[in-house]
């Protein structure tokens, strides 16, 4: 056992070393951390009430009083941006957690047991993959009803097949390794073999995919909210802010510029981080 676990800390520090030398991954991580910090600190930051209307300050351009301007109800755009980051990040992370929580076990089972189990799970995955991600999410959100929670469920469910396919593929390449054969030889059951020996070894590519899928999920949540199928007013989200902003494009362009820039930056951050993680975890690049 100890021989199997010993290399782990060295591998972790090597990966960490590679990641910290990758400038673009660091930039990505910084952007992500800044947005997460802003989202978490929203209640204590000295900003205006994101839902507080002010009829005397309707559609005011950016100024010292309102750094990002105000919207069509006189609400502070900066405050709505910071609170909106919560919805976006929450949607990104929760929907990916849903996708991982369902997709990884099915992928593990399909890859590990093979045979009929694998055939059935793989066919279902193929069928799910045939339905484009966003259309699937829109249809599900429509059938479940518009709300942030349902948008997260819809996006999460739509991303499940990606994780089933990825995990299955990884398990297939790992399950013939000597340490798995060894674990089987000492009489371990299927569940301990899958969770203790296979899962940790297929985890790195899942982590990379999860990071990149958070980026996709954030765009998907913004898209659903933009269409009116996600976060409902007056609670702010970047997508719903853009939805309103499109009606005031020529009069108040700042209403559209900031939420889009927020989505762009945070998605770019997750993409850079995901790419960096992929390079750091790729054994071929050692």
């Amino acid at each position, binding site marked *: 056992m100890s021989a199997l676990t010993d290399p782990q800390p060295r591998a972790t520090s090597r990966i960490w070393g590679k990641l910290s030398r990758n400038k673009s991954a660091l930039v990505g991580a910084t952007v992500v951390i800044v947005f997460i910090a802003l989202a978490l600190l929203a209640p204590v930051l000295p900003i205006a009430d994101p839902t507080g209307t002010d009829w005397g300050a309707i559609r005011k351009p950016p100024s010292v009083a309102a750094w990002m301007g105000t919207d069509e109800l006189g609400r502070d755009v900066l405050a709505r941006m910071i609170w909106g980051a919560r919805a976006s990040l929450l949607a990104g992370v929760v929907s990916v957690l849903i996708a991982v929580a369902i997709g990884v076990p099915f992928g593990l089972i399909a890859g590990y047991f093979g045979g009929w189990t694998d055939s059935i799970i793989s066919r279902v995955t193929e069928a799910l993959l045939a339905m484009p991600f966003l259309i699937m999410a829109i*249809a599900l959100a429509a059938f479940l009803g518009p709300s942030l929670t349902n948008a997260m469920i819809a996006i999460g469910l739509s991303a499940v097949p990606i994780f089933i396919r990825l995990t299955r593929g990884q398990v297939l390449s790992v399950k013939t390794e000597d340490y798995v054969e060894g674990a089987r030889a000492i009489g371990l059951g299927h569940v301990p073999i899958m969770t203790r020996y296979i899962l940790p070894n297929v985890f790195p590519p899942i982590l990379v995919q999860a990071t990149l899928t958070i980026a996709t999920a954030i765009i998907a949540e913004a898209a659903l909210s933009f269409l009116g199928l996600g976060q409902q007013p007056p609670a702010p989200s970047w997508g719903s802010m853009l939805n309103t902003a499109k009606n005031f494009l020529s009069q108040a362009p700042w209403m559209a510029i900031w939420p889009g820039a927020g989505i*762009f930056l945070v998605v770019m951050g997750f993409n850079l981080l995901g790419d960096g993680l992929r390079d750091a975890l790729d054994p071929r690049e050692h």
Partner: protein
Amino acid sequence: MLLFILRRILIAIPTLILVSMFVFALQKLLPGDPILVMAGEDRDPEVIALLREKYRMNDPIMMQYLYWAGGVLRGDLGVSLRTNEPVLSLIASKLPVTIQLAVMSMLFALFIGIPAGILSAVRKGTWVDWLANLVALSGLSIPNFWLGLMLILLVSVNLGWLPASGYESPFVDLKKSLTTMIMPAFVLGTALAATLMRHTRSAMLGVLQADYVRTARAKGLRGRVVVMKHAFRNAVLPVVTLTALLFGELLAGAVLTEQIFTIPGFGKLIVDAVFNRDYAVVQGVVLCTAVGFIVMNLIADVLYMLLNPRLRTAQ
């Protein structure tokens, strides 16, 4: 070859059946009873009983599915609850608009993505590579509906160069059709260009290190000939497959682009249907997109086979 295509079609059948089951199941996700919605305000028990009979709601669920699937096979996707039009003819009337948008976007993507990918691979590690990668990553990170809004703001509102919305069939007025579609096509094409660029780059990087490319260089062939004739021809295979597969993404991306530029296509149809609670249309659109995706997958496989001499002779 024919055998290969037949085999691929046979493999696609179970996928299609499963897709149809999912689409059918979507209806069952609906909160509440659709029959009560159809029965209107009065909810006359006789009408409800009649509707239940008509839509076979009293049958076991498997029979309901078979009945529905039988209709789908005969081209009957139900009728729109709002307009009472058959869903199939609704989709057929909107599809050409989206196909025009998709083809124009794909042209943008190919003309930007492939040359950028080749250049970035040939000049690996230089500022050209760095810049191309940065632009590609931005293309992948930018929400296309926001890019659309920003372009409308810049090109239509401030500069007044192109119309911000509308649609004209190319068969009626080609010039107008192209001017209204060029901006949405660019918006939809950017993310695809980014994906194509990244794949072309990585395929080219793999091929540029191959022995036959080194041999071609050693023979003293010009750089451009080596890159285009020897390397790109071999790198293009995965790119062709990807291009076919990206058409599915295009259909999905069109949903928001059409919404922004108010283009009366397939994407706008599903959004309008969602808001009108026109579930038969939503189901129809999801089913058609999935079938389209499976067909494109099939085409991608066949193209791969046709273009790859090694696989062709293996057959």
